[in-house]
C-alpha cells in the first residue's frame, strides 16, 4: 500500500473535531426534543479510543483540555465535561493494556459503564452545585454510546492505522 502523504497526530485532532460537530448537530426540525437524550457522547467515545490506543499521546491533561473545549462548544459551564473526561482518561491510562485484549462487545460494555460514571458525575454536579432539576432520561446516553462503540472503534482504528 502506498504510504499516505500526511501521517501524524493531526488525525487525532480531526476526529475529535468531527465528534464535537456531531455533538452539536441539531435534530431535524419537528422531531421530539426527547431524542436528544439518546444522542451518544461522541466526544467521550473518541476520547476513550485515543486514550486506550495511544495513551502516551492522549493523557489526562489532553482530556481536561478537550472537556473545556466541549464545554465551550455546547455552552455548558466550564468544567462540566472535563470533570468526567479527566476520570475517563485516568481509567484508560491505568487499564489500557487489559482493555486492548478484550473482545469488542466486552469493550462496549466497559465503555457503557465508564460513561455511566461520567453521567453520574455530571448529574451530581448539576443537581447538587447548580440545584438544577434534571430528567433521569440523562442516563440513556451511556447506553446509546455503548451501542455506537463498535463502529466508532472500527472507524478510528482505521484512521489510526492509515494516518498515525
Amino acid at each position, binding site marked *: 500500500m502506498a504510504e499516505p502523504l500526511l501521517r501524524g497526530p493531526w488525525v487525532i485532532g480531526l476526529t475529535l*473535531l468531527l465528534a*464535537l*460537530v*456531531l*455533538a*452539536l*448537530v*441539531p*435534530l*431535524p*426540525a*419537528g422531531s421530539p*426534543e*426527547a431524542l*436528544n*437524550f439518546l*444522542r451518544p457522547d461522541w466526544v467521550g467515545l473518541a476520547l476513550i479510543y485515543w486514550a486506550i490506543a495511544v495513551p502516551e499521546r492522549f*493523557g*489526562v*491533561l489532553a*482530556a*481536561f483540555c478537550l*472537556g*473545556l*473545549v466541549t464545554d*465551550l*462548544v*455546547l*455552552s*455548558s*459551564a*466550564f*468544567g*462540566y465535561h*472535563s*470533570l468526567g473526561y*479527566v*476520570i475517563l*482518561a*485516568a481509567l484508560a*491510562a*491505568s487499564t489500557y493494556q487489559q482493555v486492548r485484549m478484550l473482545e469488542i462487545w466486552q469493550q462496549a460494555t466497559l465503555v457503557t459503564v465508564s460513561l455511566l460514571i461520567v453521567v453520574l458525575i455530571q448529574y451530581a*454536579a*448539576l443537581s447538587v*452545585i*447548580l440545584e*438544577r*432539576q*434534571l*430528567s433521569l*432520561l*440523562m442516563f440513556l446516553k451511556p447506553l446509546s454510546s455503548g451501542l455506537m462503540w463498535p463502529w466508532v472503534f472500527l472507524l478510528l482504528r482505521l484512521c489510526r492505522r492509515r494516518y498515525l
Partner: protein
Amino acid sequence: MKQLFLERTNPRNQAVVLFIVSLLLFVIDGKGEALNPVRQGTGLILEPILWLSALPAQLIAGTSDFFETRDHQQATLTELARQVRVLQASQLKMSALEAENARLRSLLGSASRMSESVLIAEIKGLSPDPSTHYITLDKGRDDGVFVGQPVIDAAGLVGQVVETSSKLSKVLLVTDQNHAVPVLAVRTAAQLIVEGRGHRDVLSLRHVSASLDLKVGDLLVTSGLGQRFPSGYPVGLIQSYNLAPGAAFAQVLVEPASRLQTLDHVLLVFDQRSLGEGVELDRLAADG
C-alpha cells in the same frame, strides 16, 4: 532502558488535581459570570464548528426547496401577498394610533415610548443538551447584534442574546432554568417576575404573594423594568394558579406566548439606544 519506566507524572495524581480544577471552574462558571469574557473571546474557534454542524440541516432545506413544485410556490406567494395587504392595512391604522399615543403621552407629561426596529434572523442550531435551552442564530456582531439583545417572534418574547461572534449569536430562551424576565400583568398592572423551568412548554411566576389578584388566562407582558427588554411584548398567559392553604406564595404556571416548539425565524429587537451604537439603519427593517 531505565528511563522508560520512570513516570514523570503519575496520571492518577494528575487526574485528581485536574478533577479538582474542573470542579472549581464549574462552581465559578456555573454560579457567577466571571468567566463570561473568556467565552466571548473564543467565538473564533467556535464559528467553524457551528458552521459545520449547521451544514446537514442546510443541505436538507436546500434540496427540499429545489424539489418544491411550481404550484406550491405559487400558492405560497399568493398567500403571502394576501397577508402583506392585510398587514399594510392594519399598519395604516397603527401609525395613526401611534401618533395619537405619543400626543396623549406628551399631554400627560410622560416620556414617549421609544420606537423599535427589528432584524430577521434564521435559527441555525438548537441546544443538543435538553437541560439547557438556547438557539443559535445566523446573525452576529457584523449585523449589529449585541449581548443582552431581546429576541421575539411574531407571537411574543423568545429570549435574549447571551453570546455573539462576528457571524453568529446564541440566544438563551425564556424557558431555560437560568432565565428570568420582569413582567406586568395587563389586567391588574401587577409587577412580577417570570422564570424558566427547563421545560419547553411552561414558565412559572416567582414570589406571587397570596393577596395578589391574578387568575387563569391573564396576559403577562414585559414590563421594561431592568432595562433589558422593551416594555409591552407578550410573555405568556397564566395557565394555572395554585395557592396551598397557609403558603406564603402561590404557585403560578405560565404558558409561553411565543411558539418555541416550532420556531424557524425570530426577530432581533433594536431600540433607539442600541441604534445609536453604530448599527446601519438601512439594514434594519423599521417596524414603526
